[in-house]
């Protein structure tokens, strides 16, 4: 791997993504956990840029850092005694070993044997633009059904969540 903008970016974003993820699972303070989650997801957005999908990176930042982070924080504050829980990890060692085993299986069993030698030597020159995405999303031969179903899902999620979260007593 030669030294260029992409490889530097890759290393930096790997540190962001995995470091943030470690922060999420290890910190006991939920607000800090949220910030770590955002660091991690920012790294993922960086990967999207490296993979020439800047639109997805912007969506990632808008949806996660702009909205879900805020939502998690609100929820944490609403359930305030969460912060005071002296949370013990349950079965830390077996769980750690299990996760490590999963990682090794994925890495040594799937990724490297299958995609290591057969990794594509080059990447396609042409990348789909946002306009292509927009046209495909509402094309009758494209993704119009999932597009509208997503809208239905969001509506249902919003109605359901409001129905659940509303405090009828006050």
């Amino acid at each position, binding site marked *: 791997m030669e030294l260029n903008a992409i490889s530097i970016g890759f290393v930096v974003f790997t540190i962001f993504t*995995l470091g943030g993820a470690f922060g999420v699972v290890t910190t006991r303070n939920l607000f800090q956990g949220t910030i770590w989650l955002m660091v991690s997801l920012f790294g993922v957005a960086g990967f999207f840029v490296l993979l020439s999908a800047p639109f997805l990176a912007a969506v990632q930042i808008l949806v996660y850092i702009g909205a*879900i982070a805020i939502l998690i924080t609100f929820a944490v504050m609403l359930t305030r005694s969460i912060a005071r829980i002296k949370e013990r990890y349950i079965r830390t060692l077996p*769980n750690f070993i299990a996760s490590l085993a999963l990682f090794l299986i994925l890495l040594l069993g799937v990724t490297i044997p299958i995609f290591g030698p057969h*990794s594509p030597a080059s990447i396609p020159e042409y990348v789909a633009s946002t306009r292509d995405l927009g046209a495909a999303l509402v094309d009758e031969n494209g993704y119009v059904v999932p597009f509208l179903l997503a809208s239905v899902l969001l509506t249902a999620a919003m109605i359901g969540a409001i129905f659940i979260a509303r405090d009828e007593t006050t």
Partner: protein
Amino acid sequence: MVPLWMYLAVAAALFSIGVFGVLARRNAVAILMSVELMLNAVNINLVAFWRYSETGTDLLLNGYVFTAFVLIVAAAEAAVGLAIIITVYRNRRSVIPEEARALKG
């Protein structure tokens, strides 16, 4: 150029960390955050496969669009999941999933 398998390796690591969080944490909000990590690991894989796939001349947007829909589902999941956590907390003063067993027979 970064080879494809390196992206997949990072995604595998992220997924495993998420799995550890889901298994080892007791707090429902922390579990939800770990699930988000796992979803994002999947997204990295999807976008990486999309980018590296040989499309030839015609446009293939499957991976791209799929990622977008995973994002939508993640948002819906976070909204409803957190709402449930808030309600459970309000009724039972607890955010530990094992303790919410009202529906258990």
